[in-house]
């Protein structure tokens, strides 16, 4: 079985910061806006390098989204930065009308998504953002898995003409995908070939899926692991081809099962090839304070939960 090495844990938000820094050097149309969270979003370097292209908007996220929409008129490519909760739920109508319906080339970049924000608790731990964003016509939704991939995704979305939601997180997590990789929007990444079960994971849960695959391998179960970094547009072919081989699937995400990756996968399967599926996701609940590891265990979002879901789904084949 193919194995992956953690080359040194890093936070995905720093991958965003690194990608933005590179974009600042290579694309003069890229501008950045932030709602009083420069340090949290790792936008310091872009700001230092390009003060004229950086806009501190204060604690005013609705205005930030509108400003970004306006800046596209004149050819700019705005990247907005704040926490995932304030990037989506707080400004949903602004995104809907001024960005998505208006077809504006805004990149909504959201850190501290999901439970792994940790101690700040449920007010900041949005578990509904993927659903909110994927329902908007024309919106691309991306949730990369590690530092290297987040950096690559940040760079790639500047070349996509249209609105994008880029979701990443706060804690240091395993960094295992190639440095300086090419990121292709909407193209799933096969990490491990397998025959007994398909595990598709997004974001922080991809590393957990790899850990689960190791454990399953020891139990004699061959798991195919696919990194679905782009939830919309979804790589349907990768999913259907894989379940054609394995006959069952587990989806894993740091998000409510309502509206998340799992539901998107279920729709593809229901309309093409009905297949037993188990969901590793939060169960229609808010989060709470705690360390990221404690929360992932309590809410069933770690490798152990993926192993258990796999054992359940295989029995249903």
């Amino acid at each position, binding site marked *: 079985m193919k194995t992956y090495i953690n080359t040194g844990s890093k936070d995905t938000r720093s991958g965003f910061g690194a990608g933005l820094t590179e974009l600042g050097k290579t694309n003069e149309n890229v501008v950045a806006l932030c709602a009083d969270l420069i340090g949290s979003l790792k936008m310091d370097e872009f700001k230092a390098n390009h003060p004229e292209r950086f806009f501190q908007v204060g604690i005013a996220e609705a205005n930030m989204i509108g400003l*970004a929409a*306006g800046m596209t008129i004149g050819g700019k490519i705005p990247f907005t930065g704040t926490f995932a909760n304030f990037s989506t739920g707080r400004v949903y109508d602004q995104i809907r009308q001024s960005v998505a319906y208006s077809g504006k080339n805004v990149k909504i970049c959201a850190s501290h998504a999901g439970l792994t924000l940790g101690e700040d608790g449920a007010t900041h731990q949005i578990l509904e953002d993927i659903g909110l964003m994927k329902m908007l016509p024309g919106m691309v939704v991306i949730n990369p898995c590690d530092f290297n991939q987040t950096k690559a995704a940040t760079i790639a979305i500047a070349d996509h003409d249209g609105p994008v939601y880029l979701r990443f997180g706060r804690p240091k997590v395993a960094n295992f995908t190639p440095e300086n990789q090419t990121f292709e929007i909407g193209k799933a990444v096969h990490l491990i070939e397998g025959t007994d079960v398909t595990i598709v994971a997004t974001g922080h849960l991809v590393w957990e899926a790899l850990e689960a695959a190791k454990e399953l391998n020891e139990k004699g179960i061959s798991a195919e692991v696919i990194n679905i970094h782009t939830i919309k547009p979804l790589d349907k072919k990768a999913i259907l081809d894989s379940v054609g081989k394995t006959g069952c699937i587990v989806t894993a995400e740091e998000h409510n099962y309502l509206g998340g990756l799992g539901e998107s996968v279920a729709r593809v399967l229901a309309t093409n090839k009905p297949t037993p599926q188990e969901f590793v996701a939060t169960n229609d609940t808010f989060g709470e304070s705690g360390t990221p590891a404690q929360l992932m265990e309590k809410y069933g979002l770690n490798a152990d939960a993926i192993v258990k879901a796999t054992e359940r789904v295989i029995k249903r084949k």
Partner: protein
Amino acid sequence: MANIQQLEDLTTQVRRDILRMVHKVNSGHPGGSLGCAEFFVSLYNVIMDRHDNFEMDGIGEDIFFLSNGHISPVYYSVLARSGYFSVDELNTFRLIDSRLQGHPTTHEGLPGIRIASGSLGQGMSVALGAAQAKKLNNDSHLVYSLHGDGELQEGQNWEAIMYAAGNNVDNIIATIDLNGQQIDGSTDQVLPLGNVKAKFEAFGWTVVEINEGNNIEAILNGMAEAKSKTGQGKPICVLLKTVMGNGVDFMMHTHAWHGKAPNDEQLAIGLAQNPETLGDY
């Protein structure tokens, strides 16, 4: 440049367009549209330095954003009569498969529109973003915007108003249509706006008042004064005092025609008060 009589004739024709558009589909917003007819005619025919051909980026020309999108009838009429699309297309207002949606949108590719509006309170932010993009592009042209007075009840405006002054966005002229009316009644009855001039000034804006917002000469003078104050480090607000429903006597001074279309008889009266000048669409 058109003379005052030509602008007044055009305004009369725009009023006819507004009445006929909303009557045909028995829906739409005539009151605020009529109140802003002189402003739109002045803006598109005299005030703005704009290109004939529509380009979304609007580089090298003045651009305009309508924040209170429900007054789309006056916007569409003036855009069509400014050459952005055929006046015949006004026939399709609010119909299925039309580019003239109930509220303005870029989605159907109608020339002249740069942002969707209708959900209120968003246009100020968009206009400020476009103004800052102009500065980044070393484009010395201006951004104009129009907002309802009731719309100032939306909090996003005040985020934007604070931002504009704090960032010295001095290439924007944001006009507030002070007609004192909104859907449920007068602004004083619904939620008093207080002293709007003092509020903008307290936020660091330069305010120009146009007390006769349905008088074309007063609009031209006031907007020229506003333009003369751009580029001095402060955003510019124009307080345009208009009469809702202006030019149709039974629609004036009331919120009753905010979002209601005239019936056949009322249309006939309204059209009789505004005889055809340039030709109906």
